[in-house]
């Protein structure tokens, strides 16, 4: 029997028994949808981990004077920072670069002094989404600063309070001045909330007599996955002099560990999920095929070649698998797309658990925006197809080899 006719027969077989077909399609479709939902969550988890660990404080790469990370000494600075930042921004692989000043200081509301860290930043840059001060709308002009919420609680500071800041200028002089706390901030970075006063970069530079210097330049790459290569390339740039450029993995290896642990765990579970789905599909196919032994007997008695029977069965199952998978993809894909658009509150979804998570001194809010890549869909569809073929070919072959009489009796 020519292949084309076989396909048509197979196709018609499918729709002859609508209930059975419908059942199989439902089972396959739902399984596929579930797997894709899981995949969507897994992808989001990776994306999210990367964004939240690198977004606020770390960036994708950082530039420092060689000894600064080890000593944290005020005088280990990068020079001619505006020129450096400009040059970096013009690099095609760099999306943005922003400088920072880190200055230890003493802060006092009344007479009691508290050890704090003064962070001088480019306020506009750092207030962008996913950055340190994301969502901040306070403008700081004329000696106004932002204070970490926990620090303010410790010091008894309310917005509008005037505090004294005392530190050491780069020229060795005593840097001191009065500042107004414009607002209290809560950032994803615990250190900032607990111990930091944020002021505009030029304000910090002027207070600590730093001319055009800074301690750190944070770089965001266009392609985060290439952060390490970017850092390596930047290290060779002559205009950076002796400054060191490190990517976020080198700067925070513990983060790398955490991300990898989470990924490994999720992938492990993905394997389990796929096995569960595959076994479900296989079971369905096997069951359905075995139940049709009588039908095969009929066909055999009528003179159909056993190999044709096998081929027909396999084609049917394949069609079933593919249609089911496509339906499931449509359903799962739609759900993921919707969830991606609106976001899901993780805590609500999992029935408990926190809606904010504190890790490595950073607070992450758990709102999910799953997404799918083509490979996820391809993977599931191929798995279903393979499973369908295998799960139907074997019993079909068995049945086809039977004596027609025996098969008919079933």
């Amino acid at each position, binding site marked *: 029997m020519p292949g084309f006719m076989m396909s048509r027969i197979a196709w018609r077989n499918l729709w002859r*028994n609508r*209930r*059975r077909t419908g*059942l*199989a399609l*439902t*089972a396959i479709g*739902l*399984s596929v949808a*579930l*797997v894709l*939902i*899981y995949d969507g*969550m897994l992808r989001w988890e990776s994306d999210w981990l990367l964004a939240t660990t690198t977004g606020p404080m770390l960036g994708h790469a950082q530039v420092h004077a060689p000894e600064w990370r*080890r000593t944290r000494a005020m005088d280990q600075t990068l020079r001619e920072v505006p020129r450096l930042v400009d040059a970096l921004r013009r690099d095609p692989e760099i999306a943005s670069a922003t400088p920072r000043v880190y200055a230890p200081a003493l802060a006092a509301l009344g007479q009691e002094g508290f050890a704090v860290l003064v962070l001088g930043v480019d306020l506009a840059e750092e207030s962008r989404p996913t950055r340190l001060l994301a969502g901040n709308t306070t403008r700081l002009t004329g000696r106004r600063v932002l204070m970490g919420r926990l620090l303010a609680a410790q010091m008894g500071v309310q917005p509008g309070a005037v505090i004294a800041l005392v530190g050491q200028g780069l020229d060795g002089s005593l840097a001191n001045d009065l500042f107004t706390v414009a607002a209290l901030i809560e950032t994803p970075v615990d250190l900032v909330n607990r111990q930091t006063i944020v002021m505009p970069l030029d304000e910090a530079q002027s207070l600590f007599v730093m001319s055009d210097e800074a301690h750190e330049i944070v770089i965001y790459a266009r392609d985060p996955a290439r952060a390490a290569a970017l850092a390596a390339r930047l290290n060779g740039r002559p205009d950076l002099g002796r400054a060191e450029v490190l990517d976020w993995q080198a700067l925070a*290896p*513990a983060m790398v*560990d*955490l991300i*990898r*642990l989470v990924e*490994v*765990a999720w992938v*492990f*579970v993905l394997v*389990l*999920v796929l*096995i*569960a*789905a595959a*076994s*479900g*599909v*296989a*079971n*369905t196919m*096997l*069951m*359905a095929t*075995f*139940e*049709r032994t*009588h*039908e095969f007997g009929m066909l055999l008695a009528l003179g159909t070649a056993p190999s044709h029977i096998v081929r027909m069965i396999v084609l049917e199952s394949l069609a079933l698998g593919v249609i089911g998978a496509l339906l499931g993809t449509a359903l799962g894909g739609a759900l993921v797309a919707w969830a991606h658009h609106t976001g899901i509150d*993780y*805590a609500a*979804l*999992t*029935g*408990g*658990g*926190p809606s*904010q*998570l*504190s*890790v*490595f*001194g950073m607070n992450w809010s*758990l709102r999910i925006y799953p997404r799918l890549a083509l490979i996820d869909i391809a993977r599931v569809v191929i798995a279903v197809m393979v499973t369908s073929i295998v799960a139907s070919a074997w019993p079909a072959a068995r049945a086809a080899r039977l004596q027609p009489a025996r098969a008919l009796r079933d």
Partner: protein
Amino acid sequence: MAWIATRYAARTVGRNLRRTALSVLGIAIGCVLALFMESLNRGRGELFARVGSSSGIGHVRIVPAGWRVRRDQRLRLADWEADAAAARSLPGVAVVTARARAQVLLAVGTHVVPVDVVGVDPAVEARTFRYVQRVQEGRYLRATESGALVVGKTIADRLSAGVDDEVVATAVGSGGDIQSAMFRIVGIVSTGSDDADMSVCQVARGDVERLTGLSGAGEVSLVLDDFRQADAIRLTLAPRLAPGDEALTLPELAPEIQGHFEQDAASARFVSAVILLIVLLGVASAQLAAVLERRREFAVLSAIGMSGARLITLVVQEALMVGAAGALLALALGLPIVWRLARAGLDFRRYLGTSYAFQGVLLDPVIFGDFGMWIVPYVFLVAIGATVGASLYPAWYAARTDPAVALRVAQ
């Protein structure tokens, strides 16, 4: 007449062994998968327990009044010896250790490093703080030893010092005056994490008392046999403590870690649900497929007078038998797997290196499953729940079949 249904069901099951075997196998595989996930989920708590028991945090900690609000290292317990004795007297408490902390400046020549020094009880500390087992050079503190110092590698590097070198430690004494003492580095600990290394700086507790002039311990840390008893033990302990001292549990001591594990547990629940759903789908669809193929059979039974109710009973009883058999097979296959999971655990060390530091807490990235009495009822519940649940629609469908119609159309 009731027996007829059962016998028929039994015979049906026996008659079509292949189909039955397939069903049972399908159910068993699904159950084993679900069991595996559940075991992992329950075992997750063990990871949490390990955080308490091996990171030095402890499962329960007795702290002085005011420490909860202002984590001031200079606070001391009202009566640490009585508190420790009270803790030791409770059943279920594995290890009790008292510590005193101080902010100290270590100096070698012109190299200075400010550190948080922990005064410990060397004999007991190793049982609560795994870091000290990773002494890379030299050795750990000995009991009754004085003037000995164990530091993390990062500190030693910054001091430009090594084992057997003498270090001056300076602290602010109780009266606000500056006190100094000499220490000799006897061991250097390397945890693999810079942060963790900076946090390791241990001396005998008596040395901290001498240096700061603050006597007694600032904390008494408990490691329990069963971390789940933490709240119960805290309640029992609270009234027996010296006035002002209070007992805190791990979630209060390390809320960030608590948050992490809560999130982890929540994810696990979600994933379990997904897998369970998929398993149920698989079993249900297979069962449905099987039953739907037997339309003729049911039609015949109906034609010869079997009532709808009895047909339903028939189908359900078949499902029960198959489900039970599936559960038994699942146990046979799954018990060894889960047992091994509980013993050897899921070892992620291959992917992460030998240990993994999280928030300055070192953990072995091995997850152990849970093995307990819960396994048997769980498997039966899943297997039978799935099969009987799946059989309800076809049972109803079978009862509804018009025999004439069914018999007429050859399937």
